[in-house]
């Protein structure tokens, strides 16, 4: 080396070799840095890109939750309509002229003493648990429609539902009779809480985001409050309706007898026997007419009328008042292909019997 540097030609060669080595090292460093930069850029992206990706994923989930909230609201409107229309029971079909869910069934039953008495078997719905069936069916349809066209999938059949009134308090003091009590907020409303069991999953490259799509929806239809009012009023109407037509308003509900039918001449067998006697007369050869009483076994029959009333109670609301007509709360749907404003109506049937006069003895 010393010989190389001390020599003029050697010094030139040393500088040349050193320069070549330096340039090579610098090129290697440049290539290495570039590769490292590209590798890092592909891994972590631009500044804030990870945060941006997380926010974007959150926003995607937010869009799905917004759809779900509105689907729950829409389903709730339809479910309230179906539930009310089917007399607070889970039935198929609603609104057909003769299709009333019967809340009472009348019959004439034999009583001691040779007559029949009117009896009513009340089948008033016990609670509003059937609402869940209507709501879940509608919500799952909406969710299936969303999942068909979206990358994010909302889980179906995913909810534990709690129906009540906003501000309803549960506890020992409020639990008497199984009813809740209220904190005074938002009276006259219905609240449905859906507690999700499975999460919505949004996966976007490096981010996996899960959120439980629970919801809480309010409706201005006081379904649970009206449930009590309608049952009490229906109880008082059994046996007291005489014909079709409106029967006025009662606690915010407009009542109407939509259908009234009365079938009389129906027979109730009292179970008591009797004799049906009549005179049988003969005219003898001497022209003399003789009569004798002949009796046949018979039964005491009590005739009655079978009465059926189809009832409808609509929810009065000033906001829905149109010129020339009363305002009733409604929602719009085009499920049948044509848009239709459907009024919420508690719809059910009452049936009872009315005894006619005194029992009569008839031949068996």
């Amino acid at each position, binding site marked *: 080396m010393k010989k190389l540097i001390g020599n003029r030609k050697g*010094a*030139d060669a040393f*500088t*040349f070799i050193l*320069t070549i080595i*330096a*340039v090579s090292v*610098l090129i290697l460093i*440049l290539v290495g840095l570039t590769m490292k930069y590209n590798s890092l*850029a592909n891994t972590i*992206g*631009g*500044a*804030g*890109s990870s945060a*941006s990706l997380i*926010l*974007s994923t959150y*926003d995607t989930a*937010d*869009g799905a939750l*917004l*759809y779900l909230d*509105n*689907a729950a*609201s*829409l389903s709730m409107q*339809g479910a309230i309509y179906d539930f009310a229309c089917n007399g607070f029971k889970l039935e198929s079909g609603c609104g057909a002229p003769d299709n009333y869910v019967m809340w009472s069934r009348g019959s004439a039953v034999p009583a001691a003493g040779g007559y029949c008495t009117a009896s009513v078997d009340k089948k008033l719905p016990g609670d509003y648990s059937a609402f869940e069936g209507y709501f879940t069916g509608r919500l799952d*349809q*909406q969710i*299936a*429609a*969303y999942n068909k*066209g*979206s990358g994010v999938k909302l889980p179906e059949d995913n909810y534990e539902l709690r129906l009540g009134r906003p501000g309803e308090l549960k506890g020992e003091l409020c639990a008497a009779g199984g009813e809740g009590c209220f904190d005074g907020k938002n009276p006259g409303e219905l609240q449905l809480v859906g507690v999700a069991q499975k999460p919505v999953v949004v996966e976007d490259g490096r981010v996996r985001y899960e959120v439980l799509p629970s919801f809480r929806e309010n409706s*201005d239809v006081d379904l649970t409050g009206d449930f009590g009012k309608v049952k009490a009023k229906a109880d008082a109407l059994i046996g007291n309706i005489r014909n079709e037509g409106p029967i006025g308003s009662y606690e915010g509900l407009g009542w109407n007898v939509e259908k009234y039918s009365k079938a009389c001449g129906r027979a109730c067998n009292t179970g008591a026997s009797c004799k049906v006697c009549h005179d049988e007369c003969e005219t003898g050869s001497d022209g003399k007419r003789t009569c004798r009483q002949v009796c046949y076994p018979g039964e005491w029959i009590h005739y009655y009328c079978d009465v059926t009333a189809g009832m409808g109670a609509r929810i009065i*609301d000033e*906001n*829905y*008042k*149109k*010129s020339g007509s009363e*305002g009733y*709360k*409604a*929602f*719009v*749907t*085009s*499920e049948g*292909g044509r*848009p239709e*404003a459907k009024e919420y109506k508690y719809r059910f049937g009452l049936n009872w019997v009315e005894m006619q006069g005194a029992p009569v003895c008839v031949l068996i």
Partner: protein
Amino acid sequence: MTRKKAQFGLDTLLSYLLFGIFLVFTMIALTLSGCGSNRHKVERGIGVDDGGLANLMASEQLSAYLATGIPEKDVLYKRVDAAERMFAAGTPFDSRKAKEFLDRHPEVYAGRSYAEFVSAIYDYRDDAAVNDAFDAVTKAVFYRQLYSKSVRDANAGRLDGIYYSPQISVFYGMQGRFYYGSEDLVSSGLRVSGAGANAFRQLPTSDMKGLTVKLESRMEGASQPLP
């Protein structure tokens, strides 16, 4: 001191070459650190996604709009009349037709949120007055003065009469996005200059086909990252 011609040899040349390479590396290092670049070049160079943030802001804003409750009839109709006057010069709607529609169909707005209103009027999509009703209610619910009070005061009231209403449009059907000309309902207020951002949200309909709502947001600087 004089240099002999023979002294400018290969070693001198290579020294200059080495110096030049170091100079290039120095320039690259300075460029990477952002010296001499303007803000836009820096953002582009290091990949700051300001457009994404603007879209996120628009999304959150659209969600907030959709959750807004529609006021009661009296208040709503007063605001419809006021909105008609405010936006008469731009994209007017027929308030008479809009109110007739709302009178015929109170179920679309009474006690409803804006999202529920949009879903409900979808059912009356064949009605000739439905776009007037959509435009009127959108403007009536969301119009506001474009400039803040401090800016208006600073301009001695000259800006008091300028109102803003969000540009919201609806497409019948569920899509990730849609473009100009394909929308079925439009409410367009005063155009504001500035960077644009679009947000889309899907809503359910009673026939299960769904619809898509778009908000076009133009708010200069509102979503820019602060330096």
